[in-house]
């Protein structure tokens, strides 16, 4: 099969409501990196007024962070059919990337600053609580992804990004953490874990946005999407990532992480 016969659909969940920290960058990078490999790509914008079954044809899922008011609207919408479809897709190895507020949604529950427990989608075995003192965890972050036998992640390098979150996330099983925090706070500022890696889906607090700064992670999602859709591994051609690599080296040097 020729490259131009492959086509991937990226489902962008709530592009208007959940898009605060330059999240669009993740979509642009996925789109371009698929296009530059000569493959077809469709970006499907899923809003709260979109039909739930539009999700079914998505090969990669992405959802960014947002402000509280917007999150309430999304929360209500996800409790319906859309949440169930997202769960089914992730369980059957559709790759996804969920940042910050979106990452929290996929856990079992969230305890807000008034102590009220808000149920999540229960896809990730974790919960999040807001900090008693209201302290946000803000700053540049460096993390080292775990290599797990259950995933085919081949990331030898560090991942860099910027975190800015009030929530503290506790994983039921720390072995499922996406990465170990090297610089910054991570899931809760205490147990050195960052994010979650469940099946082919990653939840993380890192924006920056994460994919432009770490193109290897974008390729990981693309590769997995191709495996899922076409049932075989399709080698991705190498792209010129000079700028991204230089930017990453600079921030690693500044944060004194040996590269």
């Amino acid at each position: 099969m020729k490259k131009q016969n492959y086509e991937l659909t990226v489902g962008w969940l709530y592009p208007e409501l959940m898009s605060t920290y330059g999240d669009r960058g993740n979509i642009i990078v996925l789109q371009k990196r698929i296009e530059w490999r000569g493959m077809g790509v469709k970006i499907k914008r899923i809003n709260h007024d979109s039909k739930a079954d539009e999700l079914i044809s998505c090969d990669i899922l992405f959802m960014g962070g947002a402000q509280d008011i917007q999150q309430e609207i999304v929360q209500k919408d996800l409790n319906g059919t859309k949440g169930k479809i997202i769960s089914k897709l992730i369980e059957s190895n559709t790759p996804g990337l969920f940042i910050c507020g979106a990452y929290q949604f996929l856990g079992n529950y969230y305890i807000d600053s008034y102590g009220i427990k808000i149920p999540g989608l229960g896809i990730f075995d974790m919960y999040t609580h807001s900090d008693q003192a209201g302290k946000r965890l803000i700053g540049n972050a460096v993390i080292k992804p775990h290599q797990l036998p259950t995933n085919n992640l081949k990331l030898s390098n560090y991942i860099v990004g910027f975190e800015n979150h009030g929530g503290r996330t506790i994983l039921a099983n720390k072995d499922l953490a996406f990465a170990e925090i090297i610089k910054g706070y991570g899931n809760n500022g205490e147990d050195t874990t960052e994010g979650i890696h469940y099946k082919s889906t990653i939840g993380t607090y890192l924006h920056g946005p994460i994919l432009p700064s770490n193109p290897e992670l974008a390729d990981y999602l693309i590769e997995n999407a191709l495996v899922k859709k076409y049932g075989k591994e399709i080698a991705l051609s190498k792209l010129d990532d000079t700028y991204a690599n230089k930017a990453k080296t600079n921030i690693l040097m500044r944060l004194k992480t040996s590269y």
Partner: protein
Amino acid sequence: MLLFSILIGKFASLFIKTILNRNASTWPGHIALESNPDFIKDTLSKNKGLKIVFIAGTNGKTTTTKALYHILKTNRIDVVRNDSGANLLNGLASLIIKNSNLLGKINSKALLFEVDENSFPLILKEIKNPNAIILLNLFRDQLDRYGEINTTSQKWKSSLEKTDSKTSVIANADDPQIIDLAKCAKGKKIFYSINDDLKKEKKLSHAVDSTNCPNCQNKLEYSRISYSHIGNFSCSKCKFKNPDSIKLDIKTDLYGTFNTYNLTAAALCAENLFDIKRSDSIQSLEDFKPAFGRQEKITYKNTELLLLLSKNPTGFNESLKVAINNKYKNLVFALNDKIPDGRDISWIWDVDFELLHRGNFHITITGERAYDLANRLSYAGLENLRVYEDLSTAIKRAAKNTSNNQSIAILPTYSAMLEIRKILTGKSIL
């Protein structure tokens, strides 16, 4: 006590200016507030006749403050204002120290103060009833420092609710969140807008935040857009829409519809607080020049440079349009991530660099995060980028590569703008 605070403040100011050769726009106030936390309240209680105006919003504070200052000066009203950037409590205290005698008497009719978004509630705590507050706009800006705009708006709301009928509010009639905020104040409200034929955008840009109805969260429908979420809108559910507003025929050399809004706000404040006729304000604004770094033209090695301070997605998008619409072919983008710029640079992905597809531009990228910005531009499909992290090298190379009688537009973040100005003029301003 007051005498003591002013004395040490003035002494500090003298020391900073003569010994350190720096502009004394924050430290004297900081020291005075350390010695007397009620310094601001105490001094202003001795100046009952002084009219106080606060200027708040994400973009356009400095320009609006300077425009109002210019109108008042031209119309022979004694007025003082803060330096751009000195817009926290210590900046206000420094402004008072600089302009008062040892008894705390300020010899001016008006005090204009542009207020930082985070400091607005703190400053309204010190001065509960300024004579007027100008509310310009709210855009996402430096989320690591200011938080999300709903958070800012919530804080402002509770502060504005505490003002009484003495405080007039001059508010942007085309920003949904600003209208909602203005309604919280108890005093007179003056809403301003610009003529419909200036509202030319065809669709909402990507990085818009306030497109949901502040009353019922329903999505607003826009019939005309000036820029970002600023425009004519209505809510089909609860009927929330733009209030009746005043529009002026402003004549200016300044670029951008955003400046028409800024100048209109200044003219209406001058009318309401100082009885200056609209026509007089409009006339005095004809030769108005904004503050440094804001559409400032500097000649460097025979090349004309236009500085367009661009510090958040909306500001950057508007600067890009100014550069494109005015046929600038040579562009320099300077991205720093120091504290005044915001440490988080993810907002560059909310800027519509894709707009540059329309023309053949020579692009130079510089600043501490130059490579991140180059990465952003390469994903926008822009090629032949010249990247130099060092600002001085970038400016020199860009000037060298610019052919005769062509000019360069520079779009820097805040600290990059200050550094570039220093490179170009040889002296620092702040």
